[in-house]
């Protein structure tokens, strides 16, 4: 088994902020917009370095998305920043018409996604955003797993022409992917190779999947672990190749099981290579207040839940 080491807990949103800072220095067309959450999104450094390219729009997300769409006309690459809830559900029609249908090169960067936003509770914890965004034709959907990957993804999406939804989170989590990684949109990352089961994870659940794989390996279960940072377009080839070898799959995400990564994988498998699947995801519910760890435990989104799901899915083979 490959060994992965946490080089020190860091928040993925800081990966976004540091990536944006780097982009600001190397790409003069990059502009940033924020709806009164500059500190939370870690956009302060970009703002300080390039005040002329930073646009504070106030608490007005619909207007922010429209302005971002308009700014692409004339060659700018707008990065919008607010919480995932206010980046998607609140502005769905603005994204649909002015960005996606209009084919605008806007990068919608969404922090505080999922339960790990914590104590603020369900009003702010969106668990439906991946579904909302992946249903939009032409929208690329990315959910990164740690600081390094979020930073790399932030930089990479500036070179991609088209609308992107980049999803990340609030808490400090293990930072284990390489600092110098070459982030490729739509390309899965094979983290472990095994023959008994495939775990396909995205976002914060990737580290949990690695922990689960260690436990499973100790119990003699050879586990394949794939990090799907890009949910759309999905890396069909990597998933099919793995599941053809292992014969069963567990998907893991900090999102509702309706509309998430799990459903995308299920669609792929059902049309190409049917296989038993278990879903680590929230079960069509809202979140609630609590610490991130408490919430992930209560809603079954951690390594021990993945281990149980693996045992269940292997029994169904």
């Amino acid at each position: 088994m490959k060994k992965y080491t946490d080089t020190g807990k860091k928040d993925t949103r800081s990966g976004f902020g540091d990536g944006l800072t780097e982009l600001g220095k190397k790409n003069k067309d990059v502009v940033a917009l924020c709806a009164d959450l500059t500190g939370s999104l870690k956009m302060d450094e970009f703002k300080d370095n390039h005040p002329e390219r930073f646009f504070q729009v106030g608490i007005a997300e619909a207007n922010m998305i429209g302005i971002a769409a308009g700014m692409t006309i004339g060659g700018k690459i707008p990065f919008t920043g607010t919480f995932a809830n206010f980046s998607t559900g609140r502005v769905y029609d603005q994204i649909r018409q002015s960005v996606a249908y209009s084919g605008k090169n806007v990068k919608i960067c969404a922090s505080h996604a999922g339960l790990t936003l914590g104590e603020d509770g369900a009003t702010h914890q969106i668990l439906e955003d991946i579904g909302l965004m992946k249903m939009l034709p032409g929208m690329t959907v990315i959910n990164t797993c740690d600081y390094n990957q979020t930073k790399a993804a932030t930089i990479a999406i500036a070179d991609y022409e088209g609308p992107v939804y980049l999803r990340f989170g609030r808490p400090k989590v293990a930072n284990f992917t390489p600092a110098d990684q070459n982030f490729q949109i739509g390309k899965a990352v094979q983290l472990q190779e095994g023959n008994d089961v495939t775990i396909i994870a995205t976002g914060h659940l990737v580290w949990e999947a690695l922990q689960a794989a260690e436990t499973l390996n100790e119990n003699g279960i050879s586990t394949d672990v794939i990090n799907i940072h890009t949910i759309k377009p999905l890396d069909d080839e990597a998933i099919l190749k793995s599941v053809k070898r292992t014969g069963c799959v567990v998907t893991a995400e900090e999102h509702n099981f309706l509309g998430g990564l799990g459903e995308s994988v299920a669609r792929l498998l059902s049309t190409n290579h049917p296989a038993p699947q278990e879903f680590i995801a929230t079960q069509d519910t809202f979140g609630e207040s609590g610490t991130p760890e408490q919430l992930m435990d209560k809603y079954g989104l951690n390594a021990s839940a993945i281990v149980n799901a693996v045992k269940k899915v292997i029994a169904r083979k």
Partner: protein
Amino acid sequence: MADYKALEDLVVQVRRDILRQVHKVNSGHPGGSLGCTEFFVALYNELMERNENFTMDGIGEDLFFLSNGHISPVFYSVLARAGYFPVEELNTFRLLNSRLQGHPTTHEGLPGVRVASGSLGQGISVSIGAALTKKLNKDKHLVYTLCGDGELQEGQNWEAIMYAAGNNVDNLIVTVDLNGQQIDGATKNVLPLGNLKAKFEAFGWDVMDIEKGNDLKAIIAGMKKAKEKTGNGKPVCVLLHTVMGNGVDFMMHTHDWHGKAPNDQQLETALSQNPVTLGDY
């Protein structure tokens, strides 16, 4: 000095285009289109500085955004007659596989359109974005927007109106088609807009009225005045007082023709009031 005879001829021909487009497919929005015909003709032929070849980025030229996308028939006709695409293509309005979708879109690559519109209330925000990019690019050209009066009931407009004034977006002229009508009736009965002039002014805009919104001379003089107001720290709002359905007697002063096409007999009557000038497509 504008060639008013030529512009008047174009206005009449555009009216014919509008009526014939919606009649052919028995759908579309003639009322608001007719009410804004003189404005569109003046804007594209007398007011905007436009490059010969259309590019999405529109560097070095004035830009126009239509927020109330349902008045696509007038937009398409004026774009075609300004040379953005062949006038014959007006024959494909709302048909399957056409670039002339029910509401304007960039999706099929129709030259002259820079953003999709139809779901209301988004055009001012998009225009602000384009205006900010013009400033970043040190491009001195202007951004023009048209929105409906009923459309101002959408809350996003007021986010945008607040932003534009608060951030001195002064290379932007937003024209409101003040026809007092919307689908369910008069705006004053559906949801009163109150004193729009006072509202825009309270938000920090430079506001002016064009009382004769269907009179080419008044529109051109008024819009030139609006243009002079740009570059002074404030976004500019023009309240364009129009008559819905203008130029076709039975379509005027009513919301009945907001989204209804004329039948054969009605088309004949309407066209007889607007005899061919430049030639039908």
